[in-house]
């Protein structure tokens, strides 16, 4: 049987709803990964050993095991200990924490790369260690790691497809549903690929815009 793209319009709303969920999950997880990543970076660099160690173990766990397993653990595993996390939330948390660990590495590099004279200047006018970190070091570190963080966020978008395994009707799973009724895998997978690509382009555009905006502040 040949290709027939005319089946698409009838199922387009299902797919677009899926796309919307993918965008929401990506945005949510990106936020978690950003804030969590910065938190982990500051802990890793400045917290006393006793605080640092458990977080390091956590980071090790999230880096060293498959994301799929982490999603299963949060969604199916936590129920057993009485924590019932809705699938979408489990997806956002799982993806978010997974990428927080990767972002943390970038933020750490960024923080360490900020010139020592910056902290000295901040301390000299009377800022405390924390104030200097918050107002002087972290903003510069964030500015400097925008490109690699952007790359991580694009990986996050792609990995959001994994959230389908815990039953969230995001883009990939909605396509599978449409395929289930139409038996037209090629057409729908191509459609979904195009949609991922468009979201991707959009994210790259945002990243370029942010980079242009911080250009003068180097």
């Amino acid at each position, binding site marked *: 049987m040949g290709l027939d793209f005319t089946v698409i319009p009838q199922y387009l709303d299902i797919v677009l709803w899926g796309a919307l969920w993918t965008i929401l999950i990506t945005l949510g997880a990106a936020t978690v990964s950003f804030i969590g990543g910065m938190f982990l970076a500051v802990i890793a660099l400045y917290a006393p050993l006793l605080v640092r160690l458990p977080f390091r173990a956590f980071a090790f766990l999230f880096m060293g095991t498959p994301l799929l397993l982490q999603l299963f653990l949060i969604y199916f595993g936590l129920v057993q200990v009485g924590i019932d996390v809705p699938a979408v939330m489990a997806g956002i948390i799982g993806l978010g924490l997974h990428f927080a660990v990767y972002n943390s590495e970038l933020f750490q590099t960024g923080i360490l790369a900020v*010139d020592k*004279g*910056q902290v*000295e*200047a*901040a*301390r*000299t*006018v*009377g*800022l*405390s*260690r924390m*104030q200097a970190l918050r*107002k*002087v070091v972290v*903003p*510069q570190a964030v*500015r400097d790691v925008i490109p690699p963080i952007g790359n991580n966020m694009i990986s996050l978008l792609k990995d959001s497809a994994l959230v389908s395994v815990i039953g969230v009707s995001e883009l990939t799973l909605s396509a599978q549903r449409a395929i289930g009724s139409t038996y037209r895998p090629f057409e729908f997978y191509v459609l979904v690929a195009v949609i991922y690509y468009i979201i991707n382009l959009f994210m790259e555009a945002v990243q370029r815009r942010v980079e242009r905006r*911080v250009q*003068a*502040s*180097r």
Partner: protein
Amino acid sequence: MKDEGDHMTDQKPFVDIRHAQKSYGTLEVLKDINLQVQKGQIVAIIGPSGSGKSTLLRAINDLDPLTGGEVWLEDKQINKNLPHRQYEKHINLVRQEIGMVFQHFNLFPHLTVRGNVTLAPKMLKGLSDVEANTLAEAQLDKVGMLERIDYYPSQLSGGQKQRVAIARALAMNPKVMLFDEATSALDPELVEEVNLVMKKLAEEHMTMIIVTHEMSFAESVCDRVLFMDQGVVVEEGPPEVMFRNPTSDRTKEFLRKHLAGQHP
């Protein structure tokens, strides 16, 4: 401007460094240094590279804590012995009263000129945006940088950066200003604009301690000159004596080499 500071021994010193000693491991960088600066006095510290000038200056606001001796500002000991938390509080307050200007400016590149000058007053003195702005405008006007208030540091020349750095320090209304080779990183044609700002502060009787390689500038603004070498103050005195008729052979040697270097 030159008010014979040497003879004002009846007055209590404003900045008082007593028996300052600093070691990095076995390397002794400051060896029993004493320096008293009266209010409104301007002291220049000269000496070869590595002689401990920066270390001494940075001991005053505790950026490089001493390993021995005391530093006093008015009736407060700066490097006093306190439990860590209390010490941090104490030192943060003390530092508000001591302005410092670095060789490499150390402006905050992610903030505009306005942001650089208003950051500390807003965070530490609780100034509102409007108040902080008024303050920033006044300080920037003083250093001739008002028209660049919305620029980022990357858009300024070295001399302009240093003038903004001075305004940033002045915005905290410090009691004393420390300059660590403020013009050494500048192209020669940009040195004068920074010197002029420093002269203006001198005319306003700001207490200043200036580490410098510019002998003619030191001679024209300072009340007293210290010559340091290998962690000790070899000789000190009024500029006319120090530059024209020094006693120590090491001072003579340094000045001779230095002047030769300046006019190749």
